[in-house]
């Protein structure tokens, strides 16, 4: 696998806990300046993989290089060359803005001759010049996010890990934040994102979906929506809605049926063929169809399709 352009290279990475294989031979190459998203149900091996990539957990076998360092043999060097930002673990709410910045500068050993310049840079980037003495906990949502990002990159790491960085943030602040991320990526920073928010997944250049320790899909958001969905998606408005789901679940050629708001979403093998069949099937069961059309799957549809189809029928995770 050519390493020149790849900032992160993962080859047959495995992590086993006793008999349990949490990460089952994952291989990936992530380019410098790429915004790469990692999706997957909780317990699928996502966090374990990320911990290995951050140099926090030793792999059982296989290898990974992050920012040029081997995660198994040089975890310290890996940790010094990455930034990490997560909702649950970032800023101290009762410290002032400037105190948080200084704290993180210390943690990341920013050299004293660069310190002032970096502090200025973070304040500028987070739009907090002149507000250094505000208590962090009082900052409105979007501002805290930007400050947390600034603190995570004080040491100018070439690779950063973001965990649901804009959850709960209003859409406008979210766009501004991702604008910032995209600028950083344009300047060559490699950005690794993990999230359950499909709105965030859409900002990634490529996505990998992990399920039961393996990668089950890899591609751009559009590629995933187009190619990864097992079947095609129909939207159906009908009366009575509740009965329709049960009826359709046992209909031939229907892969899945679920209520979605005031309508039904139906996964079928072939939309064009299914539309007239479904109409007839529903009216045979005294259900009036108002409207039926093929719709584009969302990333969430892809996610669910790929993480439940491997279990026959009703999937139940502990």
């Amino acid at each position, binding site marked *: 696998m050519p390493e020149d352009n790849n900032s992160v290279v993962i080859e047959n990475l495995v992590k086993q806990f006793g008999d349990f294989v949490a990460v089952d031979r994952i291989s990936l190459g992530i380019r410098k300046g790429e915004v790469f998203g990692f999706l997957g149900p909780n317990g699928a091996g996502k966090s374990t993989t990320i911990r290995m990539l951050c140099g926090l957990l030793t792999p059982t076998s296989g290898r990974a290089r992050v920012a040029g360092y081997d995660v198994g043999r040089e975890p310290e060097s890996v940790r010094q060359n990455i930034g990490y930002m997560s909702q649950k673990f970032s800023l101290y709410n009762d410290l002032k803005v400037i105190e948080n910045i200084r704290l993180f500068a210390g943690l990341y050993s920013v050299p004293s001759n660069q310190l002032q310049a970096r502090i200025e840079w973070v304040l500028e980037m987070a739009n907090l010049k002149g507000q250094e003495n505000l208590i962090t906990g009082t900052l409105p949502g979007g501002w805290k996010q930007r400050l947390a990002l600034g603190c995570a990159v004080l040491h100018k790491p070439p690779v950063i890990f973001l965990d649901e960085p804009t*959850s709960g*943030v209003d*859409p406008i602040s979210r766009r501004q934040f991702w604008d910032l991320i995209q600028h950083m990526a344009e300047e060559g920073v490699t950005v690794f994102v993990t999230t359950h928010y499909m709105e965030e997944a859409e900002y990634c250049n490529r996505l990998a979906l992990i399920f039961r320790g393996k990668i089950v899909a890899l591609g751009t958001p559009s590629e995933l929506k187009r190619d990864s969905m097992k079947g095609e998606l129909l939207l159906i408005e009908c009366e009575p809605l509740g009965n329709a789901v049960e009826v359709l679940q046992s209909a031939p050629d229907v892969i899945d049926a679920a209520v*979605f708001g005031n309508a039904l979403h139906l996964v079928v093998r072939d939309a064009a063929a299914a539309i007239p069949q479904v109409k007839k099937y529903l009216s045979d069961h005294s259900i009036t169809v108002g409207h039926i059309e093929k719709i584009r799957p969302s990333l969430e549809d892809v996610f669910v399709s790929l993480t439940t189809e491997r279990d026959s029928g009703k999937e139940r995770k502990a």
Partner: protein
Amino acid sequence: MTEQPQSAIFAEALTKSFPGIRAVDRLSFDVSAGEIFGLVGPDGAGKTTTLRMLAGIMPPDQGKATVAGFDVVHDPEGAKHHLSYMPQRFGLYEDLTVDENIRFYADLFGVKRAEREDRATQLLQAAGMSEFRKRLAGKLSGGMKQKLGLVCALTHRPKVILLDEPTTGVDPVSRRDFWRILYELASEGVAILTSTAYLDEAERCHRVALLHQGKLLFCDTPANLKAKLGKGVLSVTSSDPRGSRDQLEHADGISSLVLTGDGLHVVVDDAARRIPEFEARLKDAHIPFGAIQQVTPTIEDLFIDAVGSGSGASLHV
């Protein structure tokens, strides 16, 4: 706004302020039996405060609210028998089993022992958790914990359920399971008010109310809201998203343009007109692109259109 006799939840001009901030600003809406109503908005928009007022645990400064016909301001105890409130940090006892937690909450709500067992079995089955009765709550996954929380909140057969961001941090598959339970409850006539910051989750509600800084931006079915947008939304797929953006950002007819991971998301005045124009621009500039398609507006598009494309939130100090 006159109260409909069949409103399971009715709020009129609800207002609540905290020092320096108007958290909820003259909020009015109603929810019918069997309806799933979404309160959607970012953190700080006023969702939790609204839910607390409706649950009768925080009095409003002004305004009126009734739940299951009871005035929650003047008779919160009357309302409590018919409602269930599941706050964001729901108190499950990690060292009790699933069964023990349900028993605890059933006792708390005064559910008679005879009923309790049947009810628990039925709810656990609906939640797909029948095999986990003896498991310690602390050992459940995030999604399962949320479902258990919901089961505990339902033992006394409330007519109204108030949920505060019940699926935060829960993966999409578990979220779908959770929603399946909500739809079943709704079909039994329960009124459900749920808050969420996940804009795509808002699409699953029968009606949504978008909150921004304590005020209601709009309230309607997702389909109606999108139809009213009156603008087209385009998705441009391109292997050079930045190049595409540079070419299109000054084109006519655009009200907002966002760089996504593999292209652009553009809101325009007239999709049919602009698609060929944009295609021509990109071709002339030799920018590779896959397709320009019209797509359904997202709730995020509605939100941004309503609030304005943002010169950024100002910092009120």
